[in-house]
């Protein structure tokens, strides 16, 4: 387990840049998290819920047709789209909600962009009997209406955030503000490997199940490790989840695929690592998209789940250390991949995951039968029908 240092830094990235009012809550969370992580009974319950409620392990699936015209490389999908609620997000919300209950917290609070994390939080909140408040940007509420209905059906209160860019960035600001007010009885369930320490570490540990399973499954099925692991990166939790299962396998290359939007040479994209610079947002030091004056920039992606100006600090560390390579796929390429993948494989990928799938085809053209490409198919695309 590669942990951040005692101050929550992965190399130069991470830390805890939050108002004083939240520091005690983060300390309390860190202590409770470390105690839970050291308690086999906690993990036993987590894995039981993942098995019986989420449907884990999720399978791996070898694509037959999607990239067969360009390469003979085995192209293998880790099927997080088969999870209950349709994405990897629930691995994390199960872990955090169990921790919240263990800590005696009475309410859950979450931000959401695409709505997947909001749905995943509302789902575990309903299961555990914890009331859930979800903060979501007005623009995202418009473009992900189905998920809003689902959250409400599950009993969550969805609060529209009309400030700033009205997307995930401002929903996250608002969630932090609300948490500051209710910090005594409320657990803030952050949806990605972002935020102040210990969140980036904790969320990674709850998503690591993806990589651990995928490693075992790849070895069992193909008798070898992948040559390459590909995942899309917004905040970066599905990527960190699958990468962390292979982090000590130095020959396995990691590829993080950011949202290239209308092109990273312009302003309309969300590629923080490819085109951003180092700064502080939402509690940690990492890469972000910002002006020369340090104002956080508006981003664009066709995929609401990638439409975020920051990125998890461990990804920044992986970029600096060279452990992972970050690339981008444009809106148009992602939409093309979405359609091609649906027709070739009979699976509708989430638009977020379609970024990883689009890049997989490019990489496949440079790989052969001796290699093996593993892609995190992080979510299903029902929510995106009608948007592409």
């Amino acid at each position, binding site marked *: 387990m590669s942990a951040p240092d005692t101050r929550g830094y992965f190399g130069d990235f991470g830390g805890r*840049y939050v*108002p004083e009012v939240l520091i005690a809550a983060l300390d309390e969370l860190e202590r409770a998290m470390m105690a839970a992580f050291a308690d086999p009974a906690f993990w036993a319950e987590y894995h039981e819920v993942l098995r019986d409620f989420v449907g884990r392990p999720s399978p791996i699936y070898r694509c037959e047709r999607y990239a067969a015209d360009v390469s003979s490389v085995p192209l293998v999908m880790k099927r997080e789209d088969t999870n209950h609620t349709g994405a990897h997000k629930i691995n994390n919300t199960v872990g955090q909600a169990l921790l919240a209950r263990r800590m005696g917290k009475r309410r859950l609070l979450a931000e959401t962009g695409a709505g997947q994390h909001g749905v995943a939080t509302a789902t575990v909140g309903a299961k555990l009997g914890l009331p859930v408040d979800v903060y979501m940007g007005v623009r995202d509420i418009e473009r992900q209406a189905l998920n809003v209905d689902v959250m409400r059906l599950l009993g969550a209160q969805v609060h529209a955030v009309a*400030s700033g860019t009205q997307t995930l960035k401002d929903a996250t*600001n608002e969630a932090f503000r609300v948490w500051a007010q209710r910090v005594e009885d409320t657990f803030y369930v952050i949806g990605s490997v972002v935020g102040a320490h210990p969140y980036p570490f904790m969320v990674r540990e709850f998503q690591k199940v993806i990589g651990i399973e995928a490693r075992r499954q790849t070895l069992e099925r193909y008798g070898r490790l992948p040559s390459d692991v590909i995942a899309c990166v917004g905040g970066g939790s599905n990527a960190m989840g699958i990468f962390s299962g292979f982090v000590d396998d130095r020959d396995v290359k990691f590829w993080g695929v950011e949202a290239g939007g209308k092109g990273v040479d312009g302003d309309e994209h969300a590629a923080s690592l490819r085109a951003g610079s180092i700064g502080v*947002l*939402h509690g940690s030091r990492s890469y972000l998209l910002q002006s020369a*004056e340090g104002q956080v920039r508006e981003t664009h992606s066709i995929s609401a789940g990638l439409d975020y100006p920051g990125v998890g600090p461990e990804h920044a560390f992986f970029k600096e250390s060279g452990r992972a390579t970050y690339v981008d796929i444009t809106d148009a390429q992602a939409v093309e991949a979405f359609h091609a993948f649906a027709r070739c494989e009979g699976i509708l990928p989430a638009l977020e995951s379609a970024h990883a799938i689009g890049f997989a085809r490019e990489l496949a053209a440079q790989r052969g039968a001796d290699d093996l490409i593993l892609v995190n198919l992080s979510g299903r695309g029902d929510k995106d029908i009608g948007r592409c």
Partner: protein
Amino acid sequence: MLEDAFERARGEKRMAFIPYVMAGDPDLETTEAILLALSDAGADVIELGVPYSDPLADGPTIAAAGQRALRSATHLREVLALASRCRERCPPIVLFTYYNPVYQFGVERFAREAAAAGVAGAIVPDVALDESAELRAALQAQGLTMPLLVAPSTPHPRAARIVDAATGFVYVVSRLGVTGTGNAPDFAPLRRQLASLRELTDKPLAVGFGLSSPQDVRNLGMLADGVVVGSALIDAYAGARAQEAATRVRQFVAPLIAACFLVSP
């Protein structure tokens, strides 16, 4: 500079009055007029807000003021220039800025240029004690102060370390949550916290967040050395510009300043 301001107020048996103004809201000319009005009215220290796109510690009023200021293209550089222009005519100015604009500006350069602009210090709400060493050292090297915040949720041993590290004054957050007038603090626990902080330090204790009326100010009694009023002040001049805004500010702060006197002057 700051120490003198608190010392003077203490000598006059009153709390120091510390208004917060967002620079550039809605334009720098208005802010300049407001700063001079506050100076005339008798403000002891002025907190000058630096606009930031993602103000985590601020409620809707200050967040919206920041958005208006960003629309007038006010950033750290413009705020420093404003402070410099007003330095001879104003009480000590403390910048209230989030960390990222400072980080992009360069921590050393920020300290240098803030000192050159005559600023007395900087409050950085998203840099708590644990991340403050570099910035504090850079400011200190230029003779500038860095007040740190203590919250109702801060455990006592940590509060002791914070008041030890804070310079200029200790910023006592009156209640959980963010800045804004929505809910007034619960004064009983606040008074207890002020009393316990008083035992830890002789540094000035300034209370902020959620204070908006003369009654709020009087509720602090003898226990605080200063009182910060931000959102309510911004509400008082919102929509006005230049001299009109300055007039409204004068009218709004007069009863607050009067309430700072522990005994009638």
